[in-house]
């Protein structure tokens, strides 16, 4: 089956400023693609380019197998939900939802039928005669979704649709969007700066920075094998620990040494055969540092390290402890029953089979090379 969206070598300039550089993305029907990155990374611009609201400076863009590079937004068979909802203020909810059909000359009976269906789906039947100003934030959000759903397009575009909602509602709507995607089987592209939203919603994530794609992959790939230090740091909360270390060869494996203030360096053995330079940055997820003697006895990948605990932060299900390694703060996600106390030494262990290595010069991942 042809990809629903296929972007090749797309670039976008404003004058001499390059906003997007050589973007290549393609998604299959039914994919939920999330564009994620810090503000100013070009993710919203990319979405506007896909919608046709911004002309592109180079490259091609095809939707549903048809070239859409120079086609106007209305002929791209897309629907879009905006951050500010962008409901038409003078129209009722019903008119807002049917405006697109009215413009396209869909007959009245069909409009009414589709309106009822979408209203029932989103549970907004009782709001149809209200004006947007009489709705709460969550209701406006639903109406904006209704306006997109009623069109039944090839591709849904979401531009940070949840960022104006309060935290509780945001989580609710997130689940709702996810179930909507599962029920409809529709193809969606979703822009957010919130990496948790990205992880929970996506079937495919594109991490961007400075107009350049850093990594494309499933949430699991992005999380466990980040392509560079930026992705490692950006995705996941708390962020991946990035610890400077030195290596030396030792038979079949590699010795990894991490300096520790006021104590002997921690010495770990990497048993996978990875060619590593002398200076590396060790990338360890907080959950890959555990406490010895608690629920994890057997694993031979675990290697002990005696660390000074600086801070203990209980967070309900988990307890985060912070220690100082290689001159960096390192966070470990321990179980709530941890015996670690601030100001005392504690026996932590690293799961070396899951760590990433990065080059300190260019930040790229070294594991696979």
């Amino acid at each position: 089956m042809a990809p629903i969206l296929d972007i090749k070598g797309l670039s976008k300039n404003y004058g001499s400023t390059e906003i997007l550089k050589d973007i290549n993305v393609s998604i299959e029907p039914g994919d939920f693609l999330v564009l994620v990155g810090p503000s100013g990374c070009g993710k919203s611009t990319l979405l506007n380019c896909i919608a046709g609201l911004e002309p592109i400076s180079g490259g091609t863009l095809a939707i549903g197998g048809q070239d859409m590079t120079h086609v106007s937004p209305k002929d791209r068979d897309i629907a879009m939900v905006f951050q500010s909802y962008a409901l038409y203020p003078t129209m009722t909810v019903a008119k807002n939802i049917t405006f697109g059909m009215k413009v396209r000359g869909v007959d009245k009976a069909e409009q009414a039928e589709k309106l009822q269906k979408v209203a029932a789906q989103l549970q907004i039947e009782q709001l149809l005669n209200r004006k947007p100003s009489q709705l709460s934030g969550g209701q406006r959000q639903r109406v904006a979704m209704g306006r997109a759903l009623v069109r039944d397009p090839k591709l849904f575009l979401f531009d940070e649709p949840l960022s104006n909602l309060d935290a509780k509602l945001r989580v609710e709507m997130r689940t709702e969007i996810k179930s909507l995607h599962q029920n409809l089987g529709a193809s969606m592209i979703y822009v957010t700066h919130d990496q948790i939203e990205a992880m929970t919603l996506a079937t495919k994530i594109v991490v961007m920075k400075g107009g350049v794609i850093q990594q494309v992959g499933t949430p699991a790939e992005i999380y466990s094998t980040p392509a560079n230090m930026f992705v490692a740091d950006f995705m996941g909360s708390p962020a991946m620990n990035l610890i400077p270390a030195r290596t030396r060869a030792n038979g079949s494996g590699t010795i990894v040494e991490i300096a520790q203030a006021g104590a002997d360096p921690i010495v770990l053995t990497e048993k996978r055969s990875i060619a590593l330079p002398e200076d590396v940055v060790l990338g360890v997820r907080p959950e890959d540092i555990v406490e010895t003697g608690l629920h994890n006895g057997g694993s031979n990948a675990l290697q002990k390290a005696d660390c000074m605990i600086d801070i203990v932060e209980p967070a309900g299900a988990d307890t985060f402890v912070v220690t100082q390694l290689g001159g960096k703060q390192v966070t470990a996600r321990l179980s709530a029953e941890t015996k670690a106390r601030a100001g005392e030494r504690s026996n932590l262990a690293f799961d070396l089979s899951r760590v990433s290595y990065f080059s300190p010069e260019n930040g790229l991942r070294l594991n696979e090379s």
Partner: protein
Amino acid sequence: MTDASLTNTTALYQASPQRQLVKTVLRVLLYILLIAFALFYLAPLFVMVTTSLKSLEEIRTGDLISLPREVTFDAWATAWSSACTGIQCDGVKPYFWNSVLIAVPAVLLSTLIGAVNGYVVAQWRFPGANIFFALMLFGCFIPFQVVLLPMARMLGLMGIAGSIPGLIFVHVIYGLGFTTLFFRNYYVTIPSELTKAAKVDGAGFFRIFFSIFLPLSLPIIVVTVIWQFTQIWNDFLFGVSFSQAGTQPITVALNNIVNSTTGVKEYNVDMAAAIIAGLPTLLVYVVAGKYFIRGLTAGSVKG
């Protein structure tokens, strides 16, 4: 501790009798001053209205500010239909209708074109939009005297010199700077996502304008209409420069009535004619005034 601080606060609010007295005196002074200013500003209107209701005889013998002994509307009737403007003696009536024929289409056209201009400059950014807008703005500040001769030549070339369409044209052109400015400033406060949403929905340039922007624009339309109507109705310079006998607006006729009387000066007729000339703008303010203030202060449109 709590009790003590409570008593202190209450004491603060209970002003001493002396303070209360000073406050009252100041308040009374303020009202006297305000009433005095109001009287000062209303005095000319009072004199105009009373004088227009007096007979010529009474004006000659009586006091300027006294009330009319006998109220008569003769002067109004004369001013409306038989006062002499030069050699013609038809009153201000034909000129009043000239002004209506000039002002109404000119106001409507300049408002509509200004709305479209503002919509383009605010929501459909094109290369050079800023320069275009700056030039339009510059048009607001060109003294009208400067353009009289070129405009006269222009109207001659277009074949509408001295006609009512000619005057409408002049007023539309010179109103555009302001109307564009008004609408542009109103429309920049409307989020551009609204336009984007409508584009994705399939609406085109005019569809978006008429379905989404125009229905939002009532406050700014009222402001623009009041502004333009006042400007055009009260205009004298263009009226006197670009009209000929039969197409003169009421401001020109009023000048002619007041300046071309022979023999006894009919103050009551002059006053009545002046009030008639001023009534329409007054009416527009009364009818739409509250929207005027609202429109000037209204900021963004809450979705």
